[in-house]
């Protein structure tokens, strides 16, 4: 492992302006002259640098949420042949800010029956893990907050904390609908976590490292092509994990009022919304980094622009899904995860194991061969799965075990 701090230009350019030029890391001073602090004060320089970087990244994430809320509302409106928010600011760009002011000035009601501590902690806990995801994502070449050698595992671990928030909100509200929503959310998270995590293993096998910086560095061919099955499973899994439509049955407003945030109001409700939209951005950033070769691109644009383009493309796809597909039933959703995605992920794992055995250190040509083989495997397996699990022609699907009476044909009508 090389000196991770000298590799991180984002960090180095601030750090070396503060720390003394006599310190071993920044011999010759920073880009804007020598360090300000005397020798021996490197810890202060480290703290200030870390804080400045984190401040920038957190603010960028919060700003991105505002822009994304606007973009999603406009786009979904267009998909549904409406206009969308267009009153405040050019093209309604300032609408999220108006929303924020409104949310901040709404009364904050805690129901009398609620468990106050759990009720108040839940909205905090939905935002924290999502923000923490941004800590390991490389935004551009040599620009990241921290380069953990267990980056992929860290992301999985941190994202699954979000399910605690759902349970805490449902349990703390003391509301039946909220409780049902929380249970649905956990059933969904639990079902889709597995295929998602298994789909990542194919990527790890090729890179041989869990650091996201290394994953991007080794991605000479985007892994969406090398691992098409893994990419699809991960995309579906992350849409389900952040509970966006068509997997938003935990907050199905036609059945469960608002799901686990039924009883929330004011800024706490706003935190739930912000957390959900931020989770979408975080998932898109993870997909961009792991499967769409992150910040890499051709030379005519800087690397952070490439990252943004891919991020926006993934977000567009997710919003398109939301605007197009109807909400699924919970029995369909869980059956799809356990019967469909899990065997597909296992198959993807075995196939990538065999391919990585044939080509232990794949170059660009080998990666393309792997891509062709994997595309063929993906096409055949998805087609077979559709034949096995899909509805027969003319079949009408009913909830498993439901008592709904559905007459096969109408009687007595002309």
């Amino acid at each position, binding site marked *: 492992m090389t000196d991770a701090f000298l590799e991180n230009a984002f960090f180095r350019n601030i750090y070396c302006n503060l720390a003394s030029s006599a310190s071993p890391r920044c011999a010759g001073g920073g880009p804007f002259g020598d360090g300000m602090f005397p020798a021996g004060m490197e810890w202060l320089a480290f703290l200030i640098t870390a804080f400045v970087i984190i401040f920038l990244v957190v603010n960028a994430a919060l700003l991105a949420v505002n822009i994304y809320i606007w973009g999603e509302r406009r786009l979904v409106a267009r998909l549904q042949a409406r206009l969308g928010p267009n009153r405040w600011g050019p093209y309604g760009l300032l609408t999220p800010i108006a929303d924020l002011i409104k949310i*901040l000035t709404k009364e904050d009601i805690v129901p009398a*029956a609620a468990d106050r501590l759990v009720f108040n902690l839940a909205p905090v806990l939905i935002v924290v893990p999502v923000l923490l995801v941004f800590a390991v994502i490389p935004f551009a070449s040599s620009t990241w907050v921290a380069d953990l050698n267990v980056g992929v595992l860290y992301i999985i671990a941190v994202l699954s904390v979000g399910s605690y928030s759902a349970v805490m909100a449902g349990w703390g509200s003391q509301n039946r609908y909220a409780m049902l929503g929380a249970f649905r959310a956990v059933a969904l998270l639990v079902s889709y976590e597995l295929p998602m995590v298994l789909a990542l293993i194919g990527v790890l096998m090729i890179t041989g490292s869990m650091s996201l910086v290394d994953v991007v560095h080794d991605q000479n061919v985007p892994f969406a092509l090398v691992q098409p099955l893994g990419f699809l499973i991960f995309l579906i899994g992350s849409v389900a994990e952040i509970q966006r439509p068509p997997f938003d049955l935990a907050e199905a407003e036609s059945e469960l009022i608002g799901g686990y945030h039924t*009883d929330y109001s004011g800024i706490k409700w706003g935190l739930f919304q912000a957390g959900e939209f931020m989770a979408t951005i975080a998932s898109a950033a993870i997909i961009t980094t792991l499967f769409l070769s992150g910040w890499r691109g051709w030379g005519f644009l800087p690397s952070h622009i490439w990252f943004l383009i891919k991020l926006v493309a993934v977000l567009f796809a997710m919003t398109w899904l939301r605007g197009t597909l109807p909400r699924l039933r919970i029995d369909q959703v869980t059956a799809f995860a356990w019967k469909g995605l899990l065997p597909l992920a296992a198959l993807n794992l075995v196939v990538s194991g065999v391919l990585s055995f044939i080509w232990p250190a794949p170059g660009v040509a080998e990666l393309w061969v792997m891509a062709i083989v994997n595309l063929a495997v993906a096409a055949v397996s998805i087609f077979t799965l559709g034949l096995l699990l899909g509805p027969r022609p003319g079949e009408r699907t009913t909830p498993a075990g439901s008592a709904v009476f559905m007459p096969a044909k109408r009687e007595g009508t002309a």
Partner: protein
Amino acid sequence: MLEDYFRQYAVIAIFGVVAVLVPLGMILASNLAGLVHIRPSRPRPPNWQESPPPYLKTYESGFEPIGGPWRRIHVRYYTFGLLFVIFDVETVFLFPWAVEYGPLSARFGIFALAEAVIFIAILALGWAYAWRKRAMEWA
């Protein structure tokens, strides 16, 4: 360098503190807005726990909530939880194998692959059993 290794985690720790402070700060800002009367905030009536006013009652689409929410939960949630635990432990074992797959296959040859395939095959048996026992049905 080992020091670098720990410094990365120090950055994550600082990030964690900031990430907790952001939502807490938002809630605090809203409460401050309540203090300066930008935001409505009513004090709770004296006997709010015994007979809560309508706006403090649990929201159930306008009906009086009868009984608490802590009812019996259907067992199907438990079966999904059980399945998840079984298969999640499997993934935990597969992660280090996948990361070290290159060196392993260089040293042990086909054995590194065969071992994992046998491991997945045993789990596939368990998966098929769970399907046969209708543990994956929502009923």
